[in-house]
C-alpha cells in the first residue's frame, strides 16, 4: 500500500472518529454536575413559567427561529428543539448549551444574551416540548403560543 493511500485511509478513519465523537447530543456529556443541577430562577410557579415562556417565545423568534424554525422543528437539517433529548435534559443542561453552544457543530454560544433571556428560552423550550407531549403539569406553559410568523406579525 502506498504511503499516499495509507495517509488517505488514516485521515478518513480519523475524520469518521471525529464526526462520531461530535455527533448530536455529545454536548450533554460535557455539562458538569454543577451546571446540570442548576435550576431556573424563573420557573418557581406555574404563573412565572408561563410568563417566562412567553418572553422566551419572543427571544426564540428573534434569535433561534432562523435555524431551528418558527415551530422549533429545525430548518435545512438543523436539529429540532422538540425532542426526547431536550425534553430529558435538565434546565441546567439547556442553560449550559446556550452559554457554550456547540461551535464545532454550527451552534454559536449565546452568552451575549442577558441571563434572564437565556432562562426565558429554557422555559420556552420546556413549554414547546410539553405542548408536543400533550397535556402536562405545565398547563400555563403549554398555552404559550408557538413562535410562528403569524403569531408575531412578522414575515420571513
Amino acid at each position, binding site marked *: 500500500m502506498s504511503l499516499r493511500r495509507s495517509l488517505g485511509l488514516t485521515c478518513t478513519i480519523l475524520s469518521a472518529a471525529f464526526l462520531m465523537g461530535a455527533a448530536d447530543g455529545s454536548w450533554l456529556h*460535557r455539562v458538569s454536575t454543577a451546571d446540570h443541577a442548576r435550576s431556573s430562577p424563573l420557573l418557581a410557579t406555574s404563573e412565572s413559567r408561563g*410568563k*417566562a415562556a*412567553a*418572553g*422566551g417565545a*419572543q*427571544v426564540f*423568534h*428573534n*434569535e433561534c*427561529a*432562523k*435555524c431551528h424554525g418558527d415551530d422549533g422543528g429545525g*430548518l*435545512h*437539517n438543523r436539529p429540532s428543539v422538540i425532542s426526547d433529548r431536550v425534553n430529558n435534559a435538565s434546565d441546567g443542561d439547556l442553560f449550559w448549551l446556550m*452559554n*457554550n*453552544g*456547540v*461551535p*464545532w*457543530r*454550527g*451552534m*454559536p*454560544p*449565546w*452568552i*451575549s*444574551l*442577558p*441571563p*434572564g*433571556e437565556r432562562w*426565558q428560552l429554557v422555559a420556552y423550550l420546556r413549554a414547546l416540548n410539553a405542548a408536543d407531549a400533550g397535556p402536562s403539569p405545565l398547563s400555563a406553559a403549554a398555552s404559550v403560543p408557538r413562535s410562528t410568523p403569524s403569531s*408575531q*406579525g*412578522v*414575515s*420571513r
Partner: protein
Amino acid sequence: MVLCMSRPDQPCSAWLLKSLCLLVLCGAAHAQEPPYVVTYSDVLEEPGNLEFATQNIYSTPKDANPFYAQTFEVEYGIRAWWTAEAYFQGQTTAHDSTVFTGFRLENRFRPLRRSHWINPVVYVEYEDISQADKSFLEVTGNHTIQDQQVANAPLRSDIERSVEGKLIASSYIKGVNVSENIIAEKNISNEPWEFGYALAVSRPLANEASAHHCVVCRQYFAVGGELFGGLGTRYTFGLSGTSQYAGPTVSYSAPRNLTILFGPEFGVNANSASVLWRLKVAYEINQFRDLFRRSR
C-alpha cells in the same frame, strides 16, 4: 406599526415610514452584539448570516478641515467559530476632496470550544489603506489628529499595506459585557510594529424579554462606553504622542435584522480631535446561505 399607518394623507412621508417599518419588521434576525464601534467583543457573525453595515464618522478637528468618512462593511459567518469581513473606506474633507482610501480584509476566530470567564477571539487583518484614511476604526502607533491637517492629494498616494493582529478578550458579568482588545500592526514594508488598544463595557437595558411582541422595547436597547487609543511603536511604546478617545454609545437592535448605533467619542488629550461623531447602521440577512438550499 400604528405609526406606519397613521399618516396616509402624506404619500411621501407615508411611503418613507412604511419603508422604514418594512425594513424593521421584515427579514432576518440578528444577534445581541454589544454596542461598540471600535472595540470587538467575542460575538461573531452567526454561521450563514450576511451583514451589511455602514459606519459614518464626522468631526471638526481644530486647525484642520472638517471631514466625513464612511466605511462600508460586509460580514459573513462562515462557521460558528469563524467570521470573515471586508471593509471599503472613503472620506470627504471640506475645502479639499473626496477620496476612496482603501480596503481591509479580516478574519476572526474563536479558538475555544466552551465559554469561559474570559473568552478569547483571534483577529487577523490585511489592510491596503492610504494615509488619507479617516475612518478611525482603530488607533495604532503614534497617530495624531495633527496628521489630518495635510491635504488629501499627497496623502492618498501614500499607501500603507499592513498586517494587523488583535487579541480580543471578552467577559460577561451578570449581563454586563467587558471587552478588551490588544492591537499589533506591522507595515509590510520596513517599518516598526505599531500598537494600540480598545476597552469597552456595555449592558442591555433589560435583562428579560417582554412577553409581548414589540418593536421598541427596553430589551432592544443597549448602552455602553468605549476607551481606545494608540500605544506607540516598538521604539516609542507608551501613551505619549498618541491620540486617545473615550465616549458613550447607545444602540438599538430591532427584532430580527436592523441595528442602529450612535455615539460621540471625545478626545482626551491634545493629540486627539475634540469629538468624533459616529453613526453605524447594520442590516443582517439571516441564513443567507439557505437561499441556495432546496431542503426545508
